[in-house]
């Protein structure tokens, strides 16, 4: 049923069981081609040239780069971010034998092997041979910087859906891309979004035409493979009037000693009556038990609910990364539009997560729901930071926020930082927050029934996160449940 679950791979599972080491902590021997080291206008030009980009794209990148130079590095209260040496990283890494797109036979077998180890169903027959009634998933795999294969393209094309790597889309659908690129998350929005604009390597573009229900779930697996390469994806999804799409983003990265920067930008646009469901399971390398290594995950995700009655749902399960800084947001511009944010964030050992959402109500009758479940263990810190802003025009708008924190052990921290701004008195806002611990009673009860300590923790934590997990498509929910258990291994006892 669940071909995409990385932990299904027996070898990987055994490795995880052995030492609670990071499960995907291996790197493969694919030849890499690197761009120039360090960040400069030349780096930006190199990337743009490598990708055969049109002039307007290069200009856009350079403008972003020049702006980025003027910006101060962000300083977040709850996050302790060691300085990043931008000149020590590579901004371009591509498999040297660049395979032809679209045909799986021509993809480097080593790459396929890597994905097989992750359990990604790149081979179409694998998915098709799934359990009866299993939904089909189209996978656009990003191997470091270049998208190497796209599946199910034909079926999607028949439905009029465009599902392309963003580099291809810039060449093939320049008008559609240009119309929205940087419109949801402006170039100068923040330090990392500006950096992304300048050096983004690849990503995904999706367009769902008017009235179309996307015939399958779309999925992109990101995987950071090369040493010292920051990864800067760019995702743009446009759902035209009355359309629907569910998009899954899964991420794993192999173990590396040096920290790696990940600064993606995701932009979503929903027109009248359109709905976008965006699900993320993030299990990048969190660093070792002493806090050495791990991914810096500084992602800007924002949705524009532009149309009337449009709806965007963000669901995220964040278990990885050394530092996570991420606020998937909804700008509710359309009347009666709906924004939802469902989040589970797990931190263990020395991980730091500062995550939440922004719900910006700009039109009448807009509604938003925020359900955040933070789980902290070890010496980690887990912060929910959320903004609910009701604009003057947002007559009769409503928000419901629930933030629950679960603590495992005495050395971890959970913080809830809600910001509420209301400029229209007819708005209704509800905020609930709880902090709890797994009780000794619950632990003993589960153990007395036969569950080991870690099985008991995994079960109780999954129960705590259930409201969020049940928002995930089934294939992801199973994977996410197992991930919660794995990421908390060694946190009790």
């Amino acid at each position, binding site marked *: 049923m669940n071909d995409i679950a990385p932990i299904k791979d027996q070898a990987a599972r055994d490795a995880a069981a052995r030492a609670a080491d990071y499960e995907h902590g291996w790197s493969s021997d694919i030849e890499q081609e690197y761009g120039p080291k360090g960040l400069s206008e030349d780096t930006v030009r190199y990337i743009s040239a490598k990708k055969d980009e049109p002039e307007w794209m290069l200009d856009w990148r350079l403008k972003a780069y020049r702006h980025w130079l003027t910006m101060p590095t962000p300083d977040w209260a709850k996050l302790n971010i060691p300085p990043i040496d931008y000149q020590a990283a590579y901004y371009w890494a591509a498999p040297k034998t660049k395979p032809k797109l679209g045909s799986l036979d021509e993809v480097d077998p080593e790459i396929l092997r890597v994905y097989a180890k992750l359990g990604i169903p790149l081979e179409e027959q694998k998915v098709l041979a799934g359990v009866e009634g299993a939904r089909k998933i189209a996978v656009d795999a990003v191997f470091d910087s270049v998208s190497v294969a796209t599946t199910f393209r034909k079926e999607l094309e028949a439905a009029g859906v465009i599902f392309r790597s963003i580099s291809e889309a810039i060449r093939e659908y320049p008008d559609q891309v240009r119309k929205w690129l940087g419109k949801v998350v402006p170039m100068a929005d923040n330090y990392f979004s500006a950096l992304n604009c300048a050096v983004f390597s690849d990503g995904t573009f999706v367009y769902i035409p008017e009235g179309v229900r996307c015939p399958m779930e779309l999925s992109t697996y990101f995987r950071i493979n090369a040493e010292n390469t920051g990864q800067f994806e760019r995702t743009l999804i446009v759902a035209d009037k009355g359309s629907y799409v569910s998009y899954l983003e899964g991420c794993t990265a192999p173990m590396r000693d040096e920290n790696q920067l990940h600064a993606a930008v995701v932009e979503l646009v929903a027109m009248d009556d359109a709905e976008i469901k965006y699900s993320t399971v993030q299990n990048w390398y969190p660093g070792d038990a002493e806090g050495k290594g791990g991914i810096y995950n500084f992602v800007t995700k924002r949705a524009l609910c532009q149309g009337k009655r449009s709806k965007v749902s963000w669901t995220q399960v964040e278990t990885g990364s050394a530092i996570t800084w991420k606020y998937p947001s909804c700008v509710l511009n359309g009347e009666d539009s709906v924004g939802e944010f469902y989040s589970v964030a797990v931190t263990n050992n020395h991980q730091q997560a500062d995550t939440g959402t922004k719900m910006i109500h700009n039109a009448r009758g807009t509604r938003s729901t925020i359900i955040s479940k933070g789980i902290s263990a070890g010496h980690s810190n887990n912060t929910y930071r959320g903004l609910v802003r009701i604009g003057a025009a947002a007559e009769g708008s409503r928000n419901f926020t629930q933030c629950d924190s679960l603590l495992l052990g005495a050395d971890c921290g959970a913080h809830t930082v809600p910001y509420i701004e209301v400029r229209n008195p007819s708005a209704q806002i509800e905020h609930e927050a709880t902090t709890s611990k797994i009780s000794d009673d619950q632990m003993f*009860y589960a153990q007395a029934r036969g*569950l080991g300590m870690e099985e*008991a923790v995994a079960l109780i934590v999954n129960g705590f996160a259930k409201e969020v997990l049940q928002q995930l498509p089934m294939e992801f929910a199973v994977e996410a449940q197992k991930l919660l258990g794995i990421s908390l291994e060694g946190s009790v006892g």
Partner: protein
Amino acid sequence: MLQIHNLSAAVADKPILNDLTLTINAGEIHAIMGPNGAGKSTLGYVLGGRPGYEVTGGSVAFNGQDLLALAPHERAAAGLFLGFQYPVEIPGVSFVQFLRESLNAQRRARGEEPLSGGAFLKLAREQAALLRLDMEMLKRPVNVGFSGGEKKRAEMVQMGILDPRLAILDETDSGLDIDALRICGEGINAIMRKPDKAVLLITHYQRLLDYVKPDFVHVLAGGKIIRSGGADLALELEEHGYEPAL
């Protein structure tokens, strides 16, 4: 099946059990009665391996194994079941999921094949029917929103599903209505009254013993067994209270 020899235990440095000795053979049903605070639940917890219940002396053999050397979940896999006086709520986790994972964890520990989803549901349905508990209730989160009596009935369903060799049932009868008392009593007999099984019933009243006839009745007071007898002892206690025994 169970040999408790001179068992002493403390909670938060406070001695609760004192040189307690008790032997339970396969095929027997024992009842333990005794005043509030005597240490009855403590005995159950110590046998179950609850952290914080420190064994300060003595030994416990369970089917020849050193019970006290096992972790709580290993004791469960070895066939020990604890029916809780106050069953615990686990929000967001259904009874079905909880019990299936528990049973399969036990089976794996014993080197048996895990039960498939279908086979487990069939088993759960049978056991729920035996205790006349609506199967729908097992789809709800563990004990959340269950009435006191429903929780106790669900404990017995759990026992039926896990099929232990020794069940320690701590005040299973408290909170049960008249019909539920009979149903649970009959359930205990159906599940546990077998030549290779045994039960230790902790109770305050004769009413449960009307349905589950004990072979032995013990009085626990001051952390040890101060009197043992047959089924008649319970009737005698019911009539005269603990005072004469103490």
